[in-house]
């Protein structure tokens, strides 16, 4: 019984670490928004012709 609990715990820990790693990787893969050029582009899209 104890052996089984230990196995399940280890499996759960492994799954948790795996998920954590994927989450961190996903976070890192998001492009740093927002260089000045990105921000300019985003702002330009919001502007009407009159505002330009």
């Amino acid at each position, binding site marked *: 019984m104890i052996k089984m609990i230990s196995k399940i715990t280890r499996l759960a820990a492994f799954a948790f670490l795996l998920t954590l790693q994927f989450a961190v990787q996903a976070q890192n893969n998001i492009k740093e928004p927002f260089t000045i050029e990105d921000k*300019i582009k985003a702002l330009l899209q919001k502007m009407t012709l009159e*505002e*330009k």
Partner: protein
Amino acid sequence: MNQYNGFWEITGPAPAAGDAKKKYDHVRKGLVGAVLNVKGTANVRRLQEIAVKEIRLGIPLLFGYDVVHGHKTLFPIPLGEAASWDLESIERSARIAAIEASAAGINWTFAPMVDISRDARWGRVMEGAGEDTYLGTKIGIARIKGFQGDDLSANNTIAATAKHFAGYGFAEAGRDYNTVDVGTSTIYNIILPPFKAAVDAGVLTVMNSFNILNGIPATANRFLQRDILKDKWDFKGFVVSDWGSGMEMIDHGFAKDLEQVAELSANAGSDMDMESYAYVAYLKEMVETGKVDIKTVDDAVKRILRVKFKLGLFDDPYKYCDAAFEKELIYNPAHAVAALDVAKKSIVLLKNTPVKINGRPLLPLKKKQQKIAVIGALADDKTVHSEAGALAAMIILPFR
């Protein structure tokens, strides 16, 4: 893409009528991207609040001013500083000018003037570094470094402007605003190098010019602004017109009306219209009728926004609005010491050794019993020193 001159008592009540009301309404509608001649932290903060808090997209304004030789603490005129040949001192002069100007809310100076000029009759010789392209280039770079510093996001560095693009210093007969007609050798070897160096040094803005260059006004000059400046030199900042230089193309006989001014200026690469009211009145229509491509407008707007981002105005639109800084830094005694140092280095002394003119002795001057004529109305005019009104009592005139 519009820049207006400061036009009403900024911190007072809103203007109720006339041109001031019209301009004020334009600011509130978000039709103005920059103003000039508005200074002082209270005034700048008030206008910036309108731009940032009351307008849909909250895009901060640029505040331009002619910070040419010092701001409040005055340094020698640029031509005088050039006579020092001391690049370090010239950079320091511009640095202090930027410190005082930024403390007063200004984030953009219309300097340095890097026009080479060789006709002493021209009325703006004093704003540049003189006749020599090499020295003028070095001085232009020093001034840009001084104004813009190493970190544009700091609150004591401001955007510089290389002006006047191009050929302004070669006005026929030295008459200001007059026609310029020069050959390609003069353009490429004498006029353009200081501007190229300014671009390489990272100058954020370039101002075009009042004059016609070889038949085409600088403001509508595609060769200068697009082919050379933006394409060949890869300039990423924006071009601002000189005061009303767009409108003056009508007087030049180059544009028939303000509508055509908008079309010609925008297509040629003049990104911001200072005080001609051509873009605000007609640019939208020009795009809608296909006379100006929307991509042209977008390119200009991107350039202007880029400068605002680089200055850090989107992070903190009030970064130049610290009243305590203003009080501490304007006329700071250390600045006066620096100005005196540069002034001493700028003085050109004649060697008091024998010289004859037409056979008559001119030098040496005698230590006693010698009279020297100081000629001209300005010899006794303390107010001519522009911003120095408050310091008039300290000015020592040459004949005293």
